[in-house]
């Protein structure tokens, strides 16, 4: 059985936000809504300054708190480990945002155009998906994955920091990277068992 997962190479990530932009283009998210974002933190004082980049999205946990706590059953988990969200079932309780320890769930309060001239054709297309007033999140670009492609963020990463593959296959690139580089999960102590591993 396939279990889709991802690795993030922290040594390769340069914080260029290409993955965030690719994700926005793929999913047509309105202003202020990011399914994937690159967090950054500058620490220390000259000359010992360090800047850390951490690209984040839904972790597609094995034990996802959003699925458990969503009262309307809008979140569900597939057999291949991908946590999906059904917009048509969400009634806007927003408990998912508080249950998710990774801040990965967005709430689309109001859809506004990016440009003062009004909605572009692509924005109009996405507005027809009735996402206003519901939660939304990364779906690992499952429509692309099902036709043998990789998620938009993985495809566009210029430094190859993101890898996508089958975590259950010991010969897959992601499994090897996790093993060789000592990949770790964020906030593993919570027991959610995320499918995204970070390579130090």
């Amino acid at each position, binding site marked *: 059985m396939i279990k889709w997962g991802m690795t993030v190479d922290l040594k390769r990530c340069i914080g260029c936000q290409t993955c965030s932009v690719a994700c926005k283009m793929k999913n047509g998210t309105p202003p202020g809504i990011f399914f994937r974002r690159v*967090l950054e*933190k500058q620490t220390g004082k000259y000359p010992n300054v360090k800047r850390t980049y951490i690209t984040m999205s839904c972790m597609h946990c094995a034990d996802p708190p959003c699925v458990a706590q*969503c*009262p*309307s059953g809008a979140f569900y988990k597939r057999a291949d480990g991908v946590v999906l969200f059904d917009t048509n079932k969400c009634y*806007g309780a927003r408990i998912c945002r*508080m249950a998710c*320890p990774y801040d990965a769930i967005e709430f689309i309060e109001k859809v506004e155009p990016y440009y003062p001239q009004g909605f572009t054709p692509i924005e109009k297309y996405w507005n027809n998906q009735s996402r206003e007033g519901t939660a939304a999140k990364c779906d690992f670009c499952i429509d692309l994955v099902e036709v043998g492609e990789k998620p938009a963020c993985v495809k566009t990463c210029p430094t190859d920091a993101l890898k996508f593959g089958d975590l259950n296959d010991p010969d897959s690139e992601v499994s090897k990277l996790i093993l060789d580089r000592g990949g770790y999960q964020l906030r593993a102590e919570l027991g959610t068992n995320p499918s995204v591993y970070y390579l130090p």
Partner: protein
Amino acid sequence: MISNEATKRMESMPVYDRHIPETCEIHYRTQTDWKLVEVLAIYFGGVGTGLYILSQLFGYTGGMIVGYLLVMVLKNIAHLLASSKPFRSIRVLSQPRTSWISRGSYGIFLFAVLGLLDIALRLGLVRFDNAALSMIVSVLAGIAAFVIMAYIGFVFTEARNIDFWHSSIVPVMFICHSVAMGYALLIVLLALTQTQADFYMLAWQFLISLAASALMVYTFMSVMRHISKSADEAVRILLHGKLAMMFWAGAIVAGLLVPICVTGYCYLTGSPAACSGLTLSIAGMLTLLGALLFQLCFVRAGVSTPIVNVD
């Protein structure tokens, strides 16, 4: 090797302050999803169920009706206003196995039927030949009310992103507050309707419920300081930050300390003049206001835990 002169020159240069978008910053962030409307839903549920259960115990049907209406009308209206898709709200019953909101909704549906039947039985609008059946309906309505009183605390406990809420003390604290609010509204109603009641005995019980609430708040705040940095940040916001005025003046002094002093004075003097319904109802109204402010502070101080250490 950088020379001392070069180091000095670089240190004298203006600090390079690169703009980081707010969405990409790693810092403590207070939640903005739940606001006043959600707090009102929680508040009306707490005060309504507290009043209903106490009125059941004291056999005060008027209080049961008010408690029932607070839950079934005001709480549910607040929930519908809070929901962005109210027409889909029936879906809230989909996940009782894992979701506390779903479990609480089942409690509300059960309470809607059983509470109404219980009130109808007490008013004599419905009669059962078997007295035991009436008792069973009454007990089940009380249990359903208790589920509504308790579930919201567990909803907060399951919020793993907010350490300040993610504590097993929260449900107990909310139950204590509900009971205190129930006593407060019961006393106010009895005083307003000039119903004959033993206010001396009520003052004693109200005092105990207030003391239990105060103890739970103190325990909760003390524990939260040491749970995690984000929980400590939430405590700081309440004690010294932007919510300090509302928390100290409204929730603690007006909502707990003044009512404790007033009811304590009523109880200790023991005279019917001092222990009047009017005096106690002032304490009751302050408690009701303070509990609302406390719940508002509690919700607004929910600080999400940053994904990595911010320090």
